């Protein structure tokens, strides 16, 4: 069972993601956020439930819906915001943007927009961890849209035959862009694919931090012990569109509102820990206040930050300088 301190850390992380994304939604609508963004609000329990089980030697891979996992893994939130705003001191010096957040020091290999690639790249991360005897595991967070990609099937097979220390979390938010899982995924239950690859597969309530945390803990322990990969399907919904500006004509009108009212992961977390007297309500409220203040500062600083200089254009293409 997690300590009070650990629970507060998890709550702070979920609240930080939520506030970051709610603010991004507002800022995007006002203009000024470059390009497009995919928001993680509503899905916080899975990234935070996963990351609470990881240590520095582990590797997290995730998808284009990248802000949440980056914050959950402990990347500098100021650098995350600056990256989204294309600034020179962004997490990736402005090269990645919203959908590509990478950070060596927090163990965040991070995002790739080729949605299923994380599972396949994770095989290599897991194999390296085993060969180098680091004791680390790799976790790939991928969406429901990814399960239909060929490379995911290739990777699940490799992970299984090589018994890799890999945990695959299918974040099933119901839609791959605008196409519903009910239409796009044969069998509908993503976790059942595990059986075909001879690995354990479970489905959890992706709005329940504790359910996610417990299943990921088992899967990580199993991976660390050398017993191979597992699949966890976290069933959840996202509170915003696939991207900001998405008209979401493909969703039932009250889907998000109902979830926000009755099934929100932050509300459920609060209820759970307060019912069990595991934290003080005042501590949760203080976190809410501190996070609101933090998000103000993050956006203010990001919007004021410098853009990268033109001299940076040709940097870091190769190990040594290449001028074209």
């Amino acid at each position: 069972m997690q300590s009070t301190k650990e629970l507060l850390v998890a709550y702070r992380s979920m609240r930080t993601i939520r506030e970051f994304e709610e603010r991004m939604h507002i800022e995007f609508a006002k203009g000024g956020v470059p390009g497009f963004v995919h928001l993680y609000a509503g899905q916080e329990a899975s990234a935070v439930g996963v990351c609470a089980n990881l240590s520095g030697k582990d590797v997290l891979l995730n998808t284009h819906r990248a802000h949440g996992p980056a914050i959950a893994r402990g990347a500098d939130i100021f650098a995350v915001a600056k990256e989204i705003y294309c600034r020179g001191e962004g997490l990736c010096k402005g090269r990645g943007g919203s959908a590509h957040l990478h950070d060596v020091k927090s163990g965040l290999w991070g995002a790739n927009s080729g949605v299923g690639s994380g599972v396949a790249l994770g095989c290599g991360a897991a194999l390296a961890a085993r060969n180098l005897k680091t004791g680390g595991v790799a976790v790939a967070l991928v969406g429901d849209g990814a399960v239909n990609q060929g490379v995911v099937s290739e990777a699940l097979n490799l992970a299984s035959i090589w018994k890799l220390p890999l945990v695959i979390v299918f974040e099933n938010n119901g839609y791959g862009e605008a196409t519903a899982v009910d239409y796009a995924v044969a069998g509908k239950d993503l976790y059942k694919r595990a059986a075909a690859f001879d690995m354990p597969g479970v489905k959890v309530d992706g709005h329940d931090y504790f359910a996610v945390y417990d299943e990921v803990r088992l899967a990580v322990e199993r991976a660390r012990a050398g017993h191979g990969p597992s699949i966890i399907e976290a069933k959840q919904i996202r509170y915003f569109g696939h991207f900001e500006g998405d008209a979401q004509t493909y969703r039932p009108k009250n889907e998000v509102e109902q979830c926000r009212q009755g099934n929100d992961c932050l509300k459920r977390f609060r209820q759970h820990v307060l019912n069990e007297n595991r934290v003080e309500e005042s501590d949760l409220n203080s976190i809410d206040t501190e996070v609101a203040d933090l998000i103000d500062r993050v956006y203010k600083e990001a919007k004021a930050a410098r853009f990268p200089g033109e001299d940076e254009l040709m940097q870091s293409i190769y190990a040594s300088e290449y001028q074209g």
Partner: protein
Amino acid sequence: MSQMNMIQAINSAHLLMMEKDPSVVVLGEDVGYFGGVFRCTDGLQKKFGEHRVIDAPIAEGGIISTAIGMGVNGLRPVAEIQFADYIYPGFDQIVSELSRLRYRSGGEFFSPVTIRTPCGGGIRGGQTHSQSPEGIFSHISGIKTVMPSNPYDAKGLLISAIESDDPVIFFEPKRIYNGPFDGDPDKPGVSWSTHPMGEVPKGYYNVPLGKAAVVEEGDELTIICYGTIVHVAQAATRLTGVRAEIIDVRTLFPLDIDTLKKSVEKTGRCLVAHEATRFCGYGAELVSSVQQECFWHLEAPIERVTGWDTPYPHAFEWKYFPGQQRIAAGIRKVMEAG
């Protein structure tokens, strides 16, 4: 020194690098127990174990992405894709991940993967054992592309590729694995044992990436080529009696433009030859670069001799292949122009 064919030279590069650097690992289809369909990895698994020479199922996307993942996390993988024709399931991983990761992460992440893959035709292999996709990969920023034309370069370049912190796609022209080939399929095969570049040191050495080789010196014409065509161009030159300078680019990207420039400034005439198809082929880049650098030295339009723009044409393999006669005709055309 010892005599090696290109397979033995490639095997020797693996062996040395695996002994030298414990982070070097090999993976691919049938590379371990079986030793590789062309025997390039023969004996490695027995010597280094299954954890360093990893047999993979037929899953090229999975092989390449696993190699990328290992490279990012402290290993130095050498992945074999059994034929370049089968690299495409892994193309997304090469283009979207391997080549771009360093740039996209602001220099924080990189993956020093070498992907070895036999390429080219001339073995009656049909469409899926004959392609020359080097131009496609040379177009991608963030990776390097190499194609040796002899055993000495194959070993030295492969060692440099493995040592490089940049990803390298290492194309091996399979028609010349066992001996140089002058483009005449009716002649009996010759082995590397009588060729000077079949003399290969047993120990460590490297051939740097990004450096072309002047294979034959001449002052009337520059022929720029690589891989199997180096040998065909040498034979074609003898047919014409033209004093051609033959340059083997060896590394396609980054291109050693200085060596090309020096030669064309001297000869004033240039022919580019490769086995791959023509349109948007690697030769187009060579022509463009030489034109830009050497325009005022050119006495004739630059000529291109390449494979035809067809899917690899099995029954017409020797019509497709830019053999001695076609290259000789190209040489005469450049010499007669202007």
